[in-house]
Structures are given as structure tokens and as C-alpha cells.
């Protein structure tokens, strides 16, 4: 196989081939490192490439050493807010430019324990506090589909790296949409699991009560495989849920016949690009053809959830950064400094009332999801915007359909469902009940089985 063929492998296929002895972890790692070396100058998807460490791990995997496990010898990459022992973890911030953790984050330890090889640390929006990945300290990450467009964020390096075939899977985090927005804008698959499903221990926080960790990969099966590895109770993460963890690969091919899928037409199908709307409408028909029943549902007051989530997110971020912002204001970009200082001006009553409104938001979604099994929505109202002309309204637009399930913690999958006339990817979003990631993934698998959007490759990625 040549370099392109190796980069096109799914994570599951590569893992299986390595297990069967038909694929060399060294050859696969070298191919991806060569792609990174060639494409990094244009895409800037990585902040730190750990080539020597990856080569050593690949050699060990090839020699049959290492932990073994479902990801034995498979190269992945990590958003640079997950602590890595001995490797700097910047969170995309100047303030953390020299921060070298002593221990791996819980999810990094789980990936290593499953045999995965880390290729390095992926670029991100500064402190995960934004959705464009226009990072003033480490440079902007560019969208592989069009270098003048944003990749989305804050896990934009993860989205760009997976889309460009620089790694077979990646980890992201999602507080206002930071897994799902780059997944949609880069044309890959990303899952924000239920709040508490995946440990956040060792991940630099943005907003404690809204931070989620999840997989980003080329397809649904790969997300399920990664979730199998990273999900599970962690008593050292106060938000971790002690819930049974199913095998997310089991039942993945069981289809959607007999399931009901809700279309929340009000809000989610309003004020959006026509091509996005048409692509998601067409996706709904794919689900209908596969045997699902479509039903229009109402998610009451969902238009207020962006404000509610915004107050909680900014207030918690301001609390986390308060001391270091006082001591090292020069360590923050002007935009982040502005937003964090403004966060200190929220009255305590606004935060508490937002948390009270949040309880109602959860009840509203629970009501909608008592009528149907899943909700289908667009992931973002628009495709990737250009770097020129970005503003605060960009953030409001891109998070409009993702913020509600960060607020309510519901599992939400984004996958590609088309392209606009400019060749930019469009994403759909499937939302499920708490801890029903398996059902969300199962439906997503139906969609990708019936379509081939995920197989398209960015022309600029080589």
C-alpha cells in the first residue's frame, strides 16, 4: 500500500490488519509521519509532533511488545489539552507554552493501554474558548477542504488532521460544540458522549459542568471503537458517571427499522443555509427509507439555551482562569482576556438562574425524547466560514445547534451528509437520550452505510 492508501485506512481496518499481521505498525506510522511533515506547513494541525516517541512505540508494537489491546499499533493524535506525561500540553495557550505534565490524562492512559500510538498534540483554539482555531500563539489551523476557511474549533486540529489523513483518529473535547463543529466543517465524524461518560481528568478545563471528551474519526465505527476504549467510570473525576458501559460496536449494524426520529423543525431548521437544510432533509429521507419513522417534534424554548449555556460557560471559565489572569495577563490573547474579564462581571444570580434554567432544558429535551428515539438536526447552520471577517457572531452562529446538548449533556453525533456548491462539507447531528450513545451510533452507521460522503477526500490534502 502506498502512503495515501495507508492514510485512507479506517482505524478499525488498520487495527484488524495489524492484529492479523498483514499491516506493519512501523510502515503505517512512517506513512502518517511523512504526511504530517508534508502537509503540516499548510494545515498547521499539530502544535507538537512526537515523531521519535511514535516511532519507538510503533517498533515496540511491531515486535509484539506493549500492552496489546484493540488499538494495538494504531496511530492517533490528541487535542493539546489532554495531559501527556513528559510532552508539553499547551491548551493552545501561550501561558502553557512550557507546561509539561507529569502524568497522562485518563483518556490518554486508556488509549495507550489499548495499544494506540500518539503521533502528537493537535492545534486548538486558545484554551478551547472559541470555535475558529484562529490561534494567535501557535498559528491558525486551516480547513483541508479550503485553506482560506476555518476548520471549526476548538478541536480544529483534530478535525483537520483526521480529514487530511494525518492520523486515523483523534480525541477532542466539547463544551459548546468543540468536537461537533470541526467534525461538521471538516467532513468527519465526531461524537460528544453523554456528560460523565468519559473522564475529563487531566484535560485542561474550559467549563467544568459542560466539558465533554469524545472521539473524532473517519466514520461511525471508528468513533464506537474509540469510545469503547475511553468510556467508563473514573472515581477521580467528580463528574464521572458510574453507569454501565456497553460494547459500542455490538449492535452497530442493527439498523433503524422501527425507530422514530424527531425533526425539531422550529429553531433547528430555521435561519440556516439552504444547502445545509436541503442536505439534512435528504438525510432524513435516508433514515425513512431505512425503516425509521419521521416525526416533527418541539423542543420548547430551545432558542434560549444558547444564552443559558453561554452564561454558565463564560462564568465557569472566568472562575478557572481568575487567578492566572491576574498574575499573567500577558499569557492570554486580547480576545480571551476580554471574554474572561467579562465573565467576572456576571452576577451570581445570573449563574444560578442559568443553572435553574438548565434543569428545565433537560426536562424539555427529555419530553421530546419521550416521543421519539432520536432527534435529527443540522450540526451547524452554515458551512466553514472564511477567516476573513470572523467575529463574535461567528461563534454564536456555529454553536447555535450544538450548545443545547452541552447544556443538557445529551449524546450527540455529527457526521458528513453532503457538500455545498463550494465543495465544503455539511454535517448532520443525531441526538439521543442520556447514555444511549449506542443507539446514536447505530443510527449514524445506517446513514453512512447508505451514503458515501465520508469517503470523499479533501483535494488539497494530497
Amino acid at each position, binding site marked *: 500500500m502506498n502512503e495515501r492508501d495507508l492514510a485512507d485506512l479506517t482505524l478499525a481496518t488498520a487495527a484488524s490488519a495489524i492484529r492479523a499481521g498483514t499491516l506493519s505498525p512501523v510502515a503505517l506510522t512512517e506513512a502518517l509521519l511523512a504526511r504530517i511533515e508534508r502537509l503540516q506547513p499548510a494545515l498547521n494541525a499539530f502544535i507538537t509532533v512526537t515523531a521519535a516517541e511514535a516511532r519507538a512505540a510503533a517498533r515496540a508494537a511491531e515486535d509484539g511488545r506493549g500492552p496489546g489491546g484493540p488499538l494495538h499499533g494504531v496511530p492517533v493524535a490528541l487535542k493539546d489539552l489532554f495531559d501527556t506525561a513528559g510532552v508539553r500540553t499547551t491548551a493552545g495557550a501561550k501561558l502553557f507554552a512550557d507546561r509539561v505534565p507529569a502524568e497522562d490524562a485518563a483518556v490518554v492512559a486508556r488509549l495507550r493501554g489499548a495499544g494506540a500510538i500518539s503521533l502528537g498534540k493537535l492545534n486548538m483554539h486558545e484554551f478551547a474558548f472559541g470555535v475558529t482555531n484562529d490561534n494567535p500563539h501557535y498559528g491558525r489551523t486551516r480547513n483541508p477542504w479550503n485553506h482560506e476557511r476555518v476548520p471549526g474549533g476548538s478541536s480544529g486540529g483534530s478535525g483537520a488532521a483526521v480529514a487530511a489523513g494525518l492520523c486515523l483518529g483523534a480525541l477532542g473535547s466539547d463544551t459548546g460544540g468543540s468536537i461537533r463543529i470541526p467534525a461538521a466543517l471538516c467532513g468527519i465524524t465526531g461524537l460528544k458522549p*453523554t*456528560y*460523565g461518560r468519559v473522564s475529563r481528568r487531566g484535560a485542561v478545563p474550559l467549563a467544568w*459542568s*459542560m466539558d465533554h471528551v469524545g472521539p473524532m474519526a473517519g466514520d461511525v465505527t471508528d468513533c464506537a471503537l474509540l469510545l469503547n476504549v475511553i468510556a467508563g467510570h473514573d472515581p477521580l473525576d467528580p*463528574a464521572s*458517571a458510574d*453507569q454501565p458501559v456497553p460494547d459500542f460496536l455490538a449492535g452497530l449494524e442493527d439498523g433503524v427499522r422501527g425507530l422514530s426520529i424527531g425533526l425539531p423543525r422550529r429553531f433547528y431548521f430555521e435561519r440556516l443555509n439552504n444547502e445545509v437544510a436541503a442536505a439534512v432533509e435528504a438525510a432524513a429521507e435516508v433514515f425513512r427509507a431505512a425503516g425509521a419513522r419521521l416525526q416533527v417534534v418541539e423542543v420548547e*424554548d430551545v432558542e*434560549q439555551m444558547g*444564552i*443559558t449555556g*453561554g*452564561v454558565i460557560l463564560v462564568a465557569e471559565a472566568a472562575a478557572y482562569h481568575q487567578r492566572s489572569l491576574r498574575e499573567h495577563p500577558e499569557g492570554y490573547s*486580547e480576545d480571551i*482576556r*476580554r*471574554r474572561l*474579564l*467579562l465573565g*467576572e*462581571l*456576571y*452576577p451570581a*444570580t*445570573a449563574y*444560578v*438562574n*442559568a*443553572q*435553574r*434554567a*438548565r*434543569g*428545565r432544558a*433537560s*426536562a424539555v429535551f*427529555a*419530553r421530546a425524547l419521550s416521543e421519539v428515539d432520536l432527534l435529527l438536526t443540522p450540526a451547524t447552520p452554515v458551512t466553514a466560514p472564511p477567516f476573513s471577517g470572523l467575529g*463574535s457572531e461567528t461563534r454564536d452562529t456555529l454553536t447555535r445547534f450544538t450548545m443545547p446538548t452541552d*447544556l*443538557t*449533556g*445529551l449524546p450527540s453525533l455529527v457526521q458528513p451528509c453532503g457538500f455545498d456548491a463550494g465543495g465544503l462539507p455539511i454535517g448532520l447531528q443525531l441526538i439521543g*437520550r*442520556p*447514555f444511549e450513545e449506542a443507539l446514536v451510533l447505530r443510527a449514524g452507521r445506517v446513514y453512512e452505510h447508505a451514503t458515501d460522503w465520508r469517503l470523499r477526500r479533501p483535494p488539497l490534502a494530497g
Partner: protein
Amino acid sequence: MTAPHQQLEPRDRLRAHLNALGLPADEATLDLLLPGYPGLLSGVARVAMMPRPEDEPASVFRVAGALAPAHFPEEADA
């Protein structure tokens, strides 16, 4: 009746707000924060008007921690 500080121009109101919290209110800080300040005030006002459970003070602390309906049956039934 409008409180006196609410009659101020946004820049003066921001300065008063920062002073009340003991935060720096120099001109550079005002320049930095002023573009986002009206949005903050609007957000605070909107959150204050939002529907929310009035009889569930405990739900204040029900941040998303445990979401399974079985954990909070009364909210799931709401």
C-alpha cells in the same frame, strides 16, 4: 423605576460595575471590555426572565452530573 447606575452611558456603567467589584477600571480595560459589555447585560437580563423551576432549589445544583432519567424522575416527568 430605573436605578441610577442604569441611566449611565455604557462606558460609565461599565466603569461603575468594575469599581463596585474592586476590579481595575483604567481606560485600557474599559476599551477592552466595552465591545462585549452590552451583550453581557443583555444575557443577564434574558437569563433573569427565563422560565425555570420555582419549587426546586435543589435543582440549582443539578448541573449535568448524572443525567439518566432514573436519577431525577421528577424532572424527567416534568
